[in-house]
């Protein structure tokens, strides 16, 4: 900013790109006052969202979610564990969110992004408290063996609203999950039953023949908004998140019940009306996301 008389008039003379870099906040506020964002979206609209199931063949369930250019790849691997004594009939879910160095210029190898463990925790809290998955369905032999579902989500491209995309990919991976058929052998170990032999020469009965899919009830969906002055911007990009720092993430389930609400500080204090507006925007978004999920699943069944 070496120009001494950097005043308001400068904006008309300067090239748009230079203005955007030098005065990012003013650049955005000029757009907001016209009720439009630099990527031509109205304030309350989310970016184009796609979901694809079965992206990773080496996993038992996987999904690739894209919101704008934010891309998340989620995959579930099922392993067997001995259930804890206090809940012998329940399996378990371990969720991990990764931001590898490929996803953003900020992340470098050996120095993991600060955001990753935060989102990791938010995701496991949201998924466990939404009651989407009944952990009893992950049980194999009561007290002896149960499934441990390792859900790993990788951010392939970070361009804002990471939690929303991560949650969508997690939901996608769970709805794509095909639990392998297994049986209990004489040593008390769980072994895979290959699908070809159809139980003809099997000495051990499969223990989970009917339990290949999880029943997902009350699926959580989320929307992140930016609060800036009196504006509410839905589904921010990385650039918007870096300039305007007050974020609000609302998670609702498919029947519009509030699962969780995050407002991790920030310079703008949320008015009650702003909170209500965020929830209203999320309610609209949940319908769209539910449609996207339903369409993706029915698309898979046709194939």
């Amino acid at each position: 900013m070496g120009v001494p008389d950097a005043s308001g008039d400068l904006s008309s003379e300067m090239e748009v790109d230079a203005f955007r870099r030098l005065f990012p906040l003013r650049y955005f506020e000029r757009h907001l006052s016209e009720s439009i964002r630099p990527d031509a979206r109205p304030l309350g609209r989310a970016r184009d969202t796609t979901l694809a199931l079965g992206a990773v063949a080496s996993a038992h369930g996987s999904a690739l979610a894209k919101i704008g250019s934010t891309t998340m790849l989620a995959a579930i691997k099922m392993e067997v564990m001995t259930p804890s004594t206090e809940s012998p009939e329940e399996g378990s879910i371990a969720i991990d969110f990764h931001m590898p160095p490929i996803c953003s210029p900020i992340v470098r190898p050996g120095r993991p992004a600060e955001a990753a463990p935060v989102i990791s925790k938010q995701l496991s809290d949201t998924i466990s408290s939404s009651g989407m998955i009944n952990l009893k369905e992950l049980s194999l032999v009561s007290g002896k063996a149960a499934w441990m579902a390792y859900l790993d989500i990788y951010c392939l491209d970070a361009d804002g609203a990471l939690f929303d995309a991560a949650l969508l990919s997690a939901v996608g991976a769970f709805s794509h999950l095909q639990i392998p058929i297994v049986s209990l052998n004489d040593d008390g170990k769980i072994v895979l039953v290959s699908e070809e032999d159809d139980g003809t020469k099997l000495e051990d009965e499969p223990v989970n023949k009917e339990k290949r899919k999880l029943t997902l009830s009350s699926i959580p969906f989320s929307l992140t908004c930016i609060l800036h002055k009196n504006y509410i911007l839905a589904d921010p990009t990385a650039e918007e998140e870096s300039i305007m720092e007050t974020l609000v993430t609302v998670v609702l389930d498919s029947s519009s019940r509030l699962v969780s609400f995050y407002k991790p500080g920030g310079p703008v204090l949320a008015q009650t009306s702003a909170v209500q507006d965020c929830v209203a925007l999320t309610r609209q978004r949940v319908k769209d996301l539910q449609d996207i999920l339903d369409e993706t699943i029915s698309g898979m069944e046709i194939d």
Partner: protein
Amino acid sequence: MASKGGAAPSTYTPARTPTNKAQRPPFFTDSDVDWTRSDGRGFHQCRSAFFRTGAVNSAAGSAYAEFGNTKVIVSVFGPRESKKAIMYSDKGRLNCNVSYTTFATTVHGQGSDNKEFSTMLHKALEGAVMLETFPKTTVDVFALVLESGGSDLPVVISCASLALADAGIMMYDLVAGVSVSCLGRNLIIDPILEEESFQDGSLMITCMPSHYEVTQLTITGEWSTANLNEAMQLCLDACSKLAKIMRSCLKDAASPSKD
């Protein structure tokens, strides 16, 4: 949930019943054997290659490569300021990192940095990049193997050179990498994971086909001289074909923006 018990309970992947275990193909002393590869390819036939540039928007350049089940993303950042306190250099630095996702392999939780591949990637690209065009700065090449399906390193190297080209980093030529496995007297090109697990020896060449220059050549295991010569020729031929596919991918990406 997982966090309840404090330490994570020890888990295991249910094993296949031993009867269906993948066996090394029946052994052969002749070079003509009646054995087909599990994916139906001929011994000297590569998997069909798919490349796409611009996979990651936040990177300066990026590429996605898919060879059968081997799926790789490479992002390139920079040239940017060298972060580490390093000696002054008129040349630029190339910083490479290869990591695996936790679900890339059949066993869960092996995903992490692969130091060996990182060095190999660096050595394979170093000779092709015009380091003097970005003095005092660093270009970062980060690769993530989304799914490992065999011949991971050559795919990472080819994909990385494409990502560098996408980022506009000056190179003498694209680097294409191909590996060959030796099984008894037979040579199989572009091996999948299962074939790599029972190979006697392996050879990988990364080269710049238009220059006819090799940037990296690794040979491991047991080889006869005749086999070695044949394998190198096979690799070089496959590299030049691969480079054509990579080049057409770059052209495709560039052409729509013109009109």
